[in-house]
């Protein structure tokens, strides 16, 4: 798996209903979502976003991730521009089995990691069958 050549993925721009006040493009971050026994883990690629400029909002079952890039003016004239710099925005609908009060977020090397713990009721329970 890991010795495969990485293919270039174009950044996908999103259109939101309300216009953003920042004059930068808005992109959909690529995400991985996997499930563990007691939690759901979400990883999102948001290069250029410092930890303090990530906004995570949970409203009922709507999870919103927003990352603001610190746009630094690049000096000089552009010779080649293969990617655009912009903010990140993505929304997910959570199933209500998530314990929304215990969501943990961390940011490392431009990757956001969200740990969404499952609510007690949703954790698998072992049921032992007792013989008569």
């Amino acid at each position: 798996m890991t010795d495969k050549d990485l293919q270039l993925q174009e950044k996908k721009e999103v259109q939101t209903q309300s216009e953003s006040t920042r004059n930068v493009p808005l992109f959909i971050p690529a995400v991985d979502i996997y499930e563990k026994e007691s939690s759901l883990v979400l990883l999102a690629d948001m290069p250029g976003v410092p930890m303090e400029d990530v906004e995570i909002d949970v409203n009922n079952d709507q999870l919103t991730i927003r990352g603001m890039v610190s746009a630094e003016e690049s000096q000089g004239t552009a010779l080649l521009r293969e990617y655009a710099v912009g903010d990140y925005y993505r929304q997910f609908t959570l199933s209500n089995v998530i314990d929304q009060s215990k969501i943990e977020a961390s940011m490392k090397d431009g990757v956001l990691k969200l740990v969404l713990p499952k609510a007690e009721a949703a954790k698998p329970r072992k049921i032992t069958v007792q013989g008569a």
Partner: protein
Amino acid sequence: MAIVRYPRFLDYSNPFQELERMRREMDRLFTGLMGEGGQRISSGVYPAVNIYEGADTFFVEAELPGIKSEDLDIAVEGNTLTLRGQRKGEEEEGLSYHRRERKLGTFHKAVTLPSDVNSEKVSAQFKNGVLKLILPKAEHAKPRKITVKME
């Protein structure tokens, strides 16, 4: 004028790769014509880079999220910059994936800059998944001011 060079060994295991690259190139060319300034022409090789030229420096930027600096190898020779590396994931057993959009793998990209670079003075900064390289031009490649004497 920018010249981008990338490893051109044909991958026989995937003969459509080159075709796919050409298709992307065409797509990009047309979206460029429709607006957007048309300045974005990509070589289609990971990672995407932005190159800027100052008076005596080049600035190269690349987005490399989730790549550790020890897994990144930067080399400069003459006017060629090579970025090589690997993106590794967290290896854990027993995960069931709902979505898997973030790709893992190795990359190798060579970029030719318009002039030679002083490879000893290249500095790199890697922050929040964005690599920023400052490449001072070689002494002989720096612009020289010529004053015209009036007679």
